[in-house]
């Protein structure tokens, strides 16, 4: 009976989807479940809206565009399996890369080995820069975030800062540069991803009476719980955040005045509103009839998509990944929804962070004290 069984599964597998070739197919790996699903699904919806719009206006190289989404779950093992399926079954030439760094790092070796372009618009871990020749990053590296906040803290003359980090790759790279650039006293506390009870950590910090508190999460889920418990602990003092909390007004419900009172400052992408960006947000709103969250990430992702499409237009053949790779390395002062940037020899878009301050409803740019 067992022999029969093995035979059956083999037949069943091979008979599956055969790739049709009239559409240009791209892959995308995003966390569609788990802690980061909120951000992942938002980016997915934006991509769907972009593709809808492009296909309505003639598509690319006179063919429609299609994006195949795979769930990376912020887990390297799952991301590798997803990349293998995209590369070997769907045979996509380009993968719009992982959201969290473990996803990108899990998928990168597969893309590199099969000469498939992988471009991430969010992952901040430094190790992505040397992950491979076909691996690109259209997002700032995590550590610049830590640097500008450290400089600003020194500028404000703060002596002692409490640093609360989530044990994930992006926050750790932010913490590394923050510690390198800030010479005042540090009181550090770490928490495991998914922690929901910060009361004890907050009581410990209040007992240390620091001048400021730098909350450094990977997922903004923990921001909402941490802030709620911070308000209930009647905290008062300067607040710093990394860029993951920017761009999602839902997070700031009923703590607007608390943030403003403690003049909350966060690192964020240097996202100057420009026509392309508003167009992206409008397309999202028409498609999903609600305003978009994580607007700065959507702008980045839109630029990554359009970089790829521009490269394909130039090479005339979407499967010529070497051609696309060379085009990308040659990108100089590309004007996109996330501003103008060029790509360096590591495949990074060399973007930088700027500081934004909470003005009652949103984190917005402000001129920093020199």
């Amino acid at each position, binding site marked *: 009976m067992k022999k029969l069984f093995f035979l059956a599964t083999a037949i069943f597998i091979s008979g599956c989807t055969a790739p049709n070739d009239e559409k240009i197919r791209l892959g995308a790996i995003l966390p569609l479940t788990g802690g980061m699903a909120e951000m992942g699904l938002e980016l997915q919806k934006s991509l769907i809206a972009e593709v809808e719009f492009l296909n309505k206006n003639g598509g690319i190289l006179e063919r429609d565009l299609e994006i195949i989404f795979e769930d990376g779950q912020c887990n390297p093992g799952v991301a590798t399996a997803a990349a293998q399926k995209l590369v070997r079954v769907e045979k996509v030439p380009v993968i719009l890369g992982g959201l969290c760094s473990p996803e990108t790092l899990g998928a990168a070796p597969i893309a590199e080995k099969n000469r498939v372009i992988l471009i991430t618009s969010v992952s901040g871990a430094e190790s992505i820069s040397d992950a491979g020749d076909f691996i690109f990053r259209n997002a700032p590296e995590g550590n610049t975030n830590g640097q500008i906040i450290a400089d600003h803290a020194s500028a404000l003359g703060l002596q002692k800062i409490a640093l609360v980090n989530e044990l994930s790759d992006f926050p750790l790279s932010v913490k590394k540069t923050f510690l390198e650039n800030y010479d005042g006293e540090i009181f550090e506390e*770490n928490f495991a991803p998914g922690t*929901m009870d910060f*009361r004890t950590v907050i009581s*410990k910090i209040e007992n240390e009476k620091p001048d400021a508190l730098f909350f450094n999460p990977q997922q903004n889920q923990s921001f909402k*719980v941490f802030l*709620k418990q911070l308000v*209930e602990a009647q905290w008062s003092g300067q607040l710093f955040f990394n860029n993951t909390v920017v761009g999602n007004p839902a997070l700031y419900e009923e703590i607007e005045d608390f943030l403003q009172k403690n003049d909350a400052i966060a690192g964020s992408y240097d996202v100057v509103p420009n026509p392309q960006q508003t167009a992206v947000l409008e397309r999202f709103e028409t498609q999903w009839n609600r305003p978009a969250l994580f607007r700065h990430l959507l702008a980045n992702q839109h630029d990554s998509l359009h970089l790829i499409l521009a490269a394909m237009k130039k090479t005339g053949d979407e499967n010529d990944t070497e051609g696309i790779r060379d085009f990308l390395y040659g990108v100089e002062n590309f004007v996109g929804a996330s501003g103008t940037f060029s790509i360096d020899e590591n495949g990074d878009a060399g973007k930088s962070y700027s500081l934004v301050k909470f003005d009652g409803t949103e984190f917005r740019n402000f001129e920093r004290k020199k």
Partner: protein
Amino acid sequence: MNDLLAQLIWNGLVAGSLLALVSLGLTLIYGIAGFVQFAHGELVALGAYGMLIFHKFLGWEIFPAGVASVACVIFFGIFLEKILFRPVRKKNPLVPLVISIGLSILLQSLILIFFGPQIQTISDRHFESFSVAGKFLATPNQLCAVVAAVILTAGLIFFLKKTRRGQSLRAVSDNRNLAQIFGVNIDSAMRWIFGVSAGLAAVAGIFLGFERNLEPMMGVQISITAFAAVILGSLGSVRGAIFGALTIGFAENLLVGFGVIPSGFSSAIPFLVLIGILLVRPTGFFGKSSQFLRE
């Protein structure tokens, strides 16, 4: 302003009493049905999400919404017992345990699909925390949680010890066949136990929802910690569950508070305490030391 030790003790008490509500349900089910119900955490989550529906979406007041949410979870608990656990009651305890693991994953996925992955809060209005005797800060929600836990625990113990129905439940948990011979209706006993434990879980869920906001995976974390509490106090013993929950609640807060254990390790504390106690007493704190032939 306020003194750290008092604040930590209060945090420990709040965490401990919420954990006690969850652990009581677990130990009752083990006492009577002989297996650790893995999906108990999801009932806690359903209590919280029920509150979200009634209070936030339907706009009911807190108290009626709470009662409605608890009632729904109680019926759901009884319904689960009827369709999933009754048919396998005769089988060895591993079978219902594995079914409850499957049920746990199923409920998590359903919550994820219906309520979405993002964090949600039950009430928009914020709780103003107030200082108690100048020593520590507490919020009204925490206070109600501790009071509710004390009342419910005392009520449960009274119910089990004094009332006829309660004694029949204890008889069933002691020896199911014997109780059956003396005319105790096993099915109704099971309904009572699963209903009561689901109710306790829902109440804990509501307070947890106010205390820490809602997310689809909130059930897993609290139920694993409750497993540690129940085992630590030794399975099936009510005072063991309460003792275990309070020990873990205080250990988590005091050890992290005074830096004995770095806060990154806080989720491992329940199990460090558990394994420590099990080394000394292999059947939990209140367990009879296992004579070879007795067990």
